[in-house]
């Protein structure tokens, strides 16, 4: 069997002695587009942050392509939540895209022509090249997210961990992002995405990981996206589910008037 792109064993994270993530065991095979789904406060962001070592884990281990994180850092790209950075920061769109090349450059080498080329190409792919010299604060939410993804693209990793890339973006950007993610998968990359919208989860992802402090289920979307498992993930929050059901019903009506 192939080595999984990402494997965690008994991954546990605690904040102030309270567990937020508990004993997550999962092996994600290479070349998939995976959605992480769960209610608010289920530890979805914490899960990918602890994989990247951004948040310290208090137990368990993580392997990326069969090796500990330190040895495979250059093969993983992390895309934090858009709100996690200060968009008033005095950098341009180009500066942010160039950050994608920092990992490859090591600590002190400066980005040169080649790195600028890579950054420009990545920006171009997301339609952000015309904005290259803009300060990042002058962008819309969707454009900011595109810049983040361009930066990830410039990293040229084999495994991507993305924290809510679809949060607060316009429909055009959402379509552009999903197209990009699918393209990445076609190129053999593994993309793991924290996602908050159940409805689109079903159509976007090949595989789903249901999380609510513990791993509820992981597998092919068609096997996982069941009433029973979703209920198990979201627990008593029936409202969430009934909302989805309602939305689905409405859509059904729209389709067949």
């Amino acid at each position: 069997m192939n080595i999984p792109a990402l494997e965690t064993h008994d991954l546990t994270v605690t904040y102030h002695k309270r567990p937020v993530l508990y004993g997550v065991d999962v092996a994600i095979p290479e070349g998939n587009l995976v959605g992480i789904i769960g209610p608010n406060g289920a530890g979805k962001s914490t899960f990918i942050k602890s994989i990247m070592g951004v948040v310290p884990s208090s137990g368990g281990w993580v392997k990326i392509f069969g090796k500990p994180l330190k040895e495979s850092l250059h093969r993983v790209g992390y895309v934090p939540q858009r709100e996690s950075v200060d968009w008033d920061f005095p950098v341009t769109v180009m500066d942010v895209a160039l950050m994608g090349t920092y990992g490859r450059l090591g600590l002190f080498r400066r980005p040169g022509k080649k790195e600028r080329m890579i950054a420009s190409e990545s920006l171009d792919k997301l339609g952000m090249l015309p904005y290259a010299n803009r300060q990042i604060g002058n962008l819309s939410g969707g454009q900011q997210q595109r810049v983040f993804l361009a930066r990830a693209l410039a990293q040229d990793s084999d495994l991507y961990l993305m924290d809510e890339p679809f949060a607060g973006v316009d429909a055009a950007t959402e379509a552009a992002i999903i197209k990009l993610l699918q393209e990445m998968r076609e190129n053999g990359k593994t993309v793991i995405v924290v996602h908050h919208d159940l409805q689109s989860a079903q159509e976007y992802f090949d595989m789903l990981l249901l999380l609510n402090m513990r791993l509820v289920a992981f597998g092919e979307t068609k096997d996982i996206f069941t009433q029973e498992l979703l209920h198990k993930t979201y627990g008593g929050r029936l409202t969430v589910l009934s909302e989805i059901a309602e939305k689905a019903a409405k859509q059904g009506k729209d389709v067949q008037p």
Partner: protein
Amino acid sequence: MVDLRKEQQVINMVEWIERPFILGAEDVFYLVMMAFFVALPCSQLGAFLVLRRMSLVGDAISHSVLPGIVVAFLFTEDLSSPWLLVGASGAGLLVTFMIEMIHSKTRVKQDAAIGIAFTSLFAIGVILVSVYASKVHIDADCVVYGKLVSILDHDSVTMLGYDVPKPLVTSAIVAILTMLTVIVCYRILLLSSFDPGMAASIGYRPRIVHYALMAVLSMVVVTSFQAVGAILVIALLIIPAASAYLCSHRLKVMLLLSGVHALISSVMGLYLYVWMDCSFAAAMVVAGSILFLFAWFFGPADGIIIKAFHRRSISLGND
């Protein structure tokens, strides 16, 4: 007739420009250079403090280096000893660590943690100064306001035929080292300030960067201590950076403008000092604040005027 008046104006101006030189050309040069070498590294590190929203941590460090200096002095009995730098950096790191511990291990938030940590250390410093007052020649006024002009009374080192005051040499070395550090570590500082999450994910260790920045900051603060004191050094950290922040949307330009701000406020400070016969450090800070007001009104990035202009052009565009 007109020409004569003009000539008189020119003479007046030249006189005004020359006025500080009654102190002696060399001394004037040393004072401005001292002011600049103190303000320059402060302005560069201050830029990162402002961007990391850590201005208050700069405040904390500037106060808590005091006990470090006193303890180091009690051991070495020499105010110009390099051990003072070590003592100060130790105290600076200690306060950083205390802040981190208080706010990560308890429910007390960071601003309160800062308030607890640095005042405690500063108070210990004050006690040490008064207990060892006979041994420590640090007077309270100097701690609070600094005394830049006192560099002229110091021992000097002969360099290229000039008798350069020792503190000026120390400050110049610290300024150059700080500039080199900022230039060499530019990308590390940039990414770990902008996006600590991504910085950590590519192996930059933001915590180590944080502590390293605090250590360098403590060293810079302690070399500026004698010149500008514990309170005014905060102004040198924050005002140039904040002014530059209003003038540019690019970090490199912001750093450059912070340095320019440091230079102009040093020169302006000298004139104000000669004119008002006041504390040089205070004069320099007032000059810096005036520059900040300028940036606030006329700043090309965020100034009031440019904003009003944009608003107008937008509303015109809508018509």
